[in-house]
């Protein structure tokens, strides 16, 4: 039983070693000269007057949160889609209800104009 998990192990090991080796060699080879001027924020070549951390407009936050919500919704679809056969009719109705609620929310957001950029 355990043997069938061997490919996963190999895959895991490879997935870890490749980036680690790459970063290690990089750190060894590349020059490392962090000067304050180099670390100052880049503003098209002009000395930045104000700090880069400024208060951003709220609408960017709203758009981001909406994206997260609908992204998570699609994640829930994956397990449902995988064993769709076993769940049969019950699963279908269940998912339709789940999707219906979220699509209603989507229309509400759309009509409220939260998706309007700018």
């Amino acid at each position: 039983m355990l043997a069938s998990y061997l490919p996963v192990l190999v895959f895991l090991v490879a997935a870890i070693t490749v980036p680690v080796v790459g970063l290690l060699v990089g750190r060894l080879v590349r020059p490392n000269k962090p000067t304050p001027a180099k670390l100052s924020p880049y503003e098209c070549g002009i000395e930045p007057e104000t700090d880069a951390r400024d208060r951003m407009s709220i609408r960017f936050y709203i758009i981001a949160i909406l994206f997260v919500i609908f992204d998570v919704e699609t994640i829930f679809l994956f397990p449902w889609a995988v064993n769709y056969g076993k769940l049969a009719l019950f699963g279908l109705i269940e998912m339709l209800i789940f999707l219906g609620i979220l699509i209603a929310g989507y229309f509400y957001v759309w009509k409220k104009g939260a998706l309007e950029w700018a």
Partner: protein
Amino acid sequence: MGIDERAFQQNVVTTTVDSVVNWARKSSLWPMTFGLACCAIEMMAVGASRFDMDRFGAGIFRPSPRQSDLIIIAGTVTLKMAEVIQVLYEQMPDPKWVISMGACSSVGGPFDTYATLQGVDKVIPVDVYIPGCPPRPEALLYGVMRLQDKIDQMSILDDKRLVVSS
């Protein structure tokens, strides 16, 4: 840095690593989009399909200094712009190289006036000077090739100022 730097000397291991690292660096020289005047138009012509700089790995023009290792000063450097060039050059990650394209950026060119810096090497260290006003696209390609030859001689050791205690 885990490994003790002073242990390194010029030996077989570092020369092969050098050749690999230099080969990697010189074949992916990402220039920064930094056109000033007429030479910038010739630089764009070099970026286009007839004189294609991509053959030398230098075709991808990066907008920001953070992702570019080569800055091609293409055009007249005025005093007001020299201040900006200083900031940009500082903000480029090491290892970085500078190509001074055209007579204007190399020595001020035809503009010997109150507002022009007579040569960009007064402000930043320059690796390759390309004559011409504007230099022909082939001249810029030749300049890139000369820079690649210069990169070939570099070694990872001299960057880290390894001192071999005699």
